[in-house]
């Protein structure tokens, strides 16, 4: 009998059957991966185990005893804690304060004892943290450590981690996995949700694959492989290789040249500091870096949304610094930036797909009236080309799923037939099938001779898709390498601001 058992769990949201008679068995001292595409029901399932939702039917057993959780508090009383994908921390407070929030006890906090307790828990698992450090001063991985400590402090020995590695660098992931192994050796049960296959292979003991609200199978990781897991997850065989189409050097012409671009940041540091690079036609230049290293400012300054202090942006030899965004768009530069909330830039959520198309296409028309026919045509062609799942072209954009929203945005930008396409995080939160759609579309553009600046998160993808990779750290270019000649470790070091040749931090 397993320590945690979920049997025949069903959960329905409106018309959607999110969980359809799911089963999950977890043992202590085991790292169990939940693998599935978007909408496969992973999050719903663990949310029921952690007390956020309650199941419509089915049973949950902890240590052989049936339990019903009405709130996260009750789940934690049974030792089940969850670390959310988006951290739930009060930034202006210290680690210690965040850890103890909501814990019942005497009205006054014994700081000395608390620090000691946190230290002892941390020592047991290798979670090192300064309890008095303010959260806003912390790196992403430190914040994650605080989240984990928060759960452990409450006495949890079953940890649910929702996409914990999405925000970490390769080095940080390595440390993080080390911590997970320590916890496992101490007898904790760990459930890790992910859609990164290589991580599943590396860290997990067992994998349960979910698809469309059903548990497909649970397998022992060692006895399975990439191909088998992917097929279970997607439901059909799929090729995992991204083709890097080669464009002959002779066909490449200079397109964009950036010289010593400097952009002011919100604090004293510059968001971009003397950034220089060049991009040719028919080339994908990947940009790697920890979130907030200047990617956004780079995109925005090329698109004319953000003003440079100094430096030049030469587009086909012409300096476009200081031109307004509309003039820049007319020159053939398009940008699709997918922020974390997906809708924040580029699309208007409350408008339908046709109107969102018109936002850009109207500009080439004369007269004061808009031509809806054109917008409708564009919308229809994009829906067909990118296989967008929508009831009609008149469907409000914000009501589409995240992946479909991203396809609408990227589709619109590609439809403008740009010469330079800037795309940031185009596959953010997308599942495998949808991601490969987007990679194919980018490759297709590249073959047409478009120059692409691809700002990405997943280093594996960056390495496979890009021709060259530029690494940003604190607004500085740490290096530009041929994708074929570099590896994840090298990029990871550069992302952390470490100069490989010197082996020391430069900033």
């Amino acid at each position, binding site marked *: 009998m397993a320590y945690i058992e979920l049997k025949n769990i069903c959960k329905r*949201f409106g018309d959607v059957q999110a969980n359809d008679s799911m089963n999950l068995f977890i043992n202590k001292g085991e790292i169990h991966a939940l693998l599935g595409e978007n909408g496969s029901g992973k999050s719903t399932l663990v949310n029921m185990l952690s007390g956020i939702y309650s199941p419509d039917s089915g049973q949950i057993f902890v240590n052989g005893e049936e339990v019903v959780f009405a*709130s*996260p*508090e009750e789940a*934690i009383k049974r030792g089940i804690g969850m670390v*959310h994908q988006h951290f*739930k*921390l*009060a*930034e*202006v*407070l210290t680690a210690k*304060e*965040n850890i*103890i*929030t*909501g*814990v019942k*006890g*005497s*009205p*006054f*906090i014994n700081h000395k004892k608390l620090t000691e307790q946190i230290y002892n828990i941390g020592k047991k698992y290798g979670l090192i943290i300064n309890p008095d450090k*303010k959260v*806003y001063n912390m790196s992403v991985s430190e914040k994650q450590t605080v989240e984990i400590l*928060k759960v452990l402090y409450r006495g949890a020995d079953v940890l649910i981690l929702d996409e914990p590695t999405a925000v970490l660098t390769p080095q940080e992931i390595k440390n993080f996995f080390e911590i997970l192994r320590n916890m496992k050796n101490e007898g904790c049960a760990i459930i890790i949700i992910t859609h990164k296959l290589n991580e599943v292979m590396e860290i997990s003991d067992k994998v349960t694959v979910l698809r469309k609200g059903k548990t497909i199978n649970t397998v022992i990781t060692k006895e399975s492989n990439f191909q088998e897991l992917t097929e279970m997850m997607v439901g059909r065989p799929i090729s995992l290789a991204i083709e890097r189409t080669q464009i002959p050097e002779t066909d490449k012409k200079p397109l964009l040249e950036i010289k010593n671009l400097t952009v002011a940041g919100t604090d004293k540091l510059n968001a971009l500091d003397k950034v220089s690079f060049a991009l040719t036609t028919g080339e994908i230049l990947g940009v790697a870096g920890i979130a907030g290293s200047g990617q956004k400012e780079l995109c925005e300054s090329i698109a004319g949304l953000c003003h440079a202090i100094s430096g030049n942006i030469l587009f086909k030899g012409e300096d476009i610094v200081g031109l307004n965004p509309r003039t820049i768009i007319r020159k053939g530069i398009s940008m699709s930036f997918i922020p974390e909330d997906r809708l924040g830039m580029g699309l208007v959520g409350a408008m339908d797909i046709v109107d969102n198309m018109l936002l850009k296409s109207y500009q080439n028309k004369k007269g004061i009236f808009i031509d809806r026919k054109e917008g409708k045509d564009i919308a229809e062609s994009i829906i067909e080309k990118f296989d967008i799942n929508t009831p009609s072209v008149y469907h409000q954009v914000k009501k589409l799923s995240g992946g479909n929203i991203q396809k609408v945005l990227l589709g619109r930008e590609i439809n403008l037939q740009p010469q330079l396409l800037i795309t940031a995080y185009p596959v953010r939160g997308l599942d495998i099938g949808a991601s490969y759609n987007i990679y194919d579309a980018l490759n297709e553009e590249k073959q047409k001779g478009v120059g692409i600046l691809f700002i990405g998160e997943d280093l594996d993808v960056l390495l496979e898709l890009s021709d060259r990779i530029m690494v940003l750290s604190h607004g500085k270019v740490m290096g530009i390498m041929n994708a074929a000649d570099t590896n994840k470790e090298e990029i990871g070091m550069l992302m952390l601001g470490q100069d490989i040749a010197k082996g020391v931090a430069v900033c």
Partner: protein
Amino acid sequence: MENTTVQMVALFLQTSVQMGTPILFATLGAILGEKVGHLNLGVEGMMLMGAVIGFQVGFSSGDPALTLLAAGSAGALGALIYAFVTVTLRANQIVTGLALTIFGTGFSSFVGQKLAAETLSDSLVKSFAPMEIPILKDIPILGKMFFSQSLYVWLAFILAFVVYFFIKCTRYGLNLRVVGENPAAADASGVHVDLYKYISILLGGAMCGIGGAYTSVVFIGRWQEEITAGVGWIAVALVIFATWHPLKAIFGAYFFGMLRTIGFKIQNLSIPFFGNSFIIPTQLLDMIPYLMTIIVLVIITLRKKRENQPPGWLGNPYFREDR
């Protein structure tokens, strides 16, 4: 001669502290609300409700404790309306707060109609009269400023320390801060977000009400329309001046009390100026505290320390993530 100057300064400071007392109550009340993420522009309204109900009950009963209780309850009642609309119904905080101020103003005028000619009983006046503390009262200047004051004035002063200690040092205070910084984090940690908001906003309202009653019952001792004269608005700005810190609010409140006193003291003073003598118009003097408020806000905004920023979730309603 020197002696009279010292006496004048002492009297000036004593009045400043008294003038600052309602501001202090209201600022503490507003801080409590904002600490749980609720910007309440109804401070002036809650003060007026407390002022009129406090005066009415003080007038009818003559009991000081009952007066305070009534004033606090009236303020809390105003806050309850605000809390229901903004916490439970998640309506816009700015609009709700402004509506509360307009409501409170009208309410106080209505209830106060018959109170205009009334005076309070001697025993009530006596119980709120300045108390002189032996020995300490003889310290030059400070003696008059702090040690010959009404119990009511000390109450505000002590309350600031209590609020500070509660927020900073207790488990409940920590939970309260997290609610204002990131309600989702509080919720996930098992804190009852709405309960904390209600309690905090209601306590804040009670403080505003008590602050209002100080003006009507103690400082002026008579009822007049819009008796708080915009103190509630100064308090809203002072919260920022004090960077949401109850102890800094003490300084802020007494400082603005001083500005208001200056306005009073020199309103009929003729000032010689190149052979002519001028009387500074009262209206101009009335502007001083508000002008200072604007200047202070500009200065505060220039300081960019993370700890001095407003609570992270200030002004936003909280929805538990639902699908």
